[in-house]
C-alpha cells in the first residue's frame, strides 16, 4: 500500500526494500552479463589472433610452395631430360622411326624435343597417300610411339605432311 504524499514540494520517493532488491539483482545480472561479454570478447580476440596466425602460416606455406614448385618442375624436367636422353638417344629414336618407314615414304625433317617426354615433329614425303597411311598405321601400331597427331598435308604429285608424336618412356624394342 502506498500512502499519498501531502508535501507542498513532493520529492522523488525513496526506493523501498523490494526496489533495492530488484536493483541489486539487476546489477548482479548486469555484472554477470558484462563478465560473460568480456569473456566472449576475449575469446573472440584470441580466436581472431589464432586465425590471423593460421592465415600467416598458410600464406607463408603457400609462398614456400610457390617458390618450390617451379624449382621442382624444372628439376623434374631436367631429370626427365637426363633420363630420356639416356634411354632414348636421338640415334635410337631415329633407328626406330626408320624401321617403320615404308619404302615409298622418306623422312625429310625430324625435330626431337627432350622435356617431360620426348616429342617429335616429323616432316615426311610419300609417293602417294596410301604409302603415307601405311606409315601412320605402323606408327600407331608401334609400342615405341604414341600421341600421333597428323598435321598439315599437301597433296600434289607427291604427298607432303607434318605430324607430331611422342616417344614412349623406357627402352622399348
Amino acid at each position: 500500500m502506498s500512502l499519498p504524499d501531502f508535501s507542498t514540494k513532493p520529492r522523488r520517493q525513496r526506493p523501498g526494500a523490494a526496489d533495492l532488491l530488484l536493483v541489486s539483482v539487476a546489477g548482479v545480472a548486469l555484472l554477470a552479463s558484462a563478465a560473460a561479454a568480456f569473456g566472449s570478447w576475449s575469446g573472440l580476440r584470441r580466436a581472431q589472433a589464432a586465425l590471423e596466425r593460421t592465415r600467416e602460416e598458410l600464406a607463408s606455406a603457400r609462398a614456400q610452395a610457390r617458390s618450390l614448385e617451379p624449382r621442382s618442375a624444372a628439376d623434374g624436367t631436367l631429370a626427365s631430360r637426363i633420363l630420356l636422353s639416356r634411354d632414348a638417344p636421338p640415334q635410337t629414336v631415329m633407328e626406330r622411326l626408320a624401321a617403320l618407314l615404308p619404302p615409298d615414304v622418306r623422312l625429310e625433317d625430324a625435330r626431337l624435343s627432350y622435356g617431360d617426354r620426348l616429342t617429335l615433329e616429323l616432316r615426311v614425303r610419300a609417293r602417294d597417300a596410301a604409302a603415307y597411311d601405311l606409315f601412320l598405321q605402323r606408327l600407331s601400331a608401334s609400342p615405341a610411339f604414341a600421341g600421333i597427331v597428323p598435321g598439315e598435308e599437301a597433296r600434289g604429285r607427291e604427298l607432303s605432311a607434318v605430324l607430331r608424336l611422342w616417344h614412349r618412356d623406357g627402352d622399348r624394342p
Partner: protein
Amino acid sequence: VFGSKRIVALDAGAVRGASASWGLRGLRVHASARAPLGPGALAPSPLDPNLARPDEVRDALRHVRAELGIDGRGTVLVLPDGVARVVLVRPPAGVAGPEYARFRVLQGLPYAADDAITGVLPLGRQGALLAGAVRRSVVHEYEEAAAAAGFVQERLELAPLAALSGLLPDPGAGRVTAVILGDAALCLAGFEGGELATFRSRRRDPGPDEARRLREDVERTAALAGPGSPPRVKLVGSGSGALARELTQLGLAAEPGWQAAANGHVVEGAEMAFLGAARA
C-alpha cells in the same frame, strides 16, 4: 537499519518520533522519542494557523531528533488528526477512482480548492478510496518547523491514513471498528469482512466519560455499516491503552491496534498511531 523508517508526528500534546520497521515478524521499534508541548502551542485545525508558538514546537522537534540520534534526513512527517478533511469515496462503475475521489473531497471545503493538497488511499478490493485534502498553508507551517529543527522531509502524511495502513484487518476478520486517537481529534473506521464500510471523524473530548462516548460512537459506526454483532475494536493513538481497558469494562471486545517489538527498551506501540506509516 535496512527497511526502517524515521517518522515524526506532531500533535496538540506532543511531538513524537520513532525509527521503526514493519516486517514479517510485525512492527519493530528501533528507537522512539516524545517531547511534550504546552497547552495551546499547537492546535490542529484545517483553517487557522496551527502553530501558535512555533519556537516551542521547533524545540520539541529538535529534542526528538536528538533523542532519536538521527541526522534528520529521510524523515516522514505526519500531520495530526483534525488538520485535513478525509472522506470515504466509492466511485461509481466506469469512472477513474482517484480523480473522482479528488473531485469529491474538494467539494464543500471552507477554502479555495486551489489551496488544497489532495491525496487518495486505495483500500480493499471493492474500490473504496479514502481521499484527503489539507490546506497548503497549514502544511507549510509544519514543514517550516520541521526544516528549522533539522529534519529533511522525505514525505508528509496524514495521521488517520498512516494509522489505517497498519490497521487493515484480514478479509476473514468479520466486523472490526478501528479507532485512531489524536490529541485533538479522532477517527472511526468500520470494516466488514476486511472492507472499509464507514469512516467518520470528530473532535476529541477527553474527560471522565470519554470511554462511554467512544463506545456509543463505535456502536453508531458499526450500525452505519449494517446490522450485525458488536464489532471488535482496535485502538491506536494517545491514550489507546487506557481506553481499550475501559471499553472492555463497558462490554466491548477492545484491544490495542498493534503491539510493538522494541529493541531493548519498553514502548507501547499502539500509543503511536503514526507507526502505521512504517507499514506503507
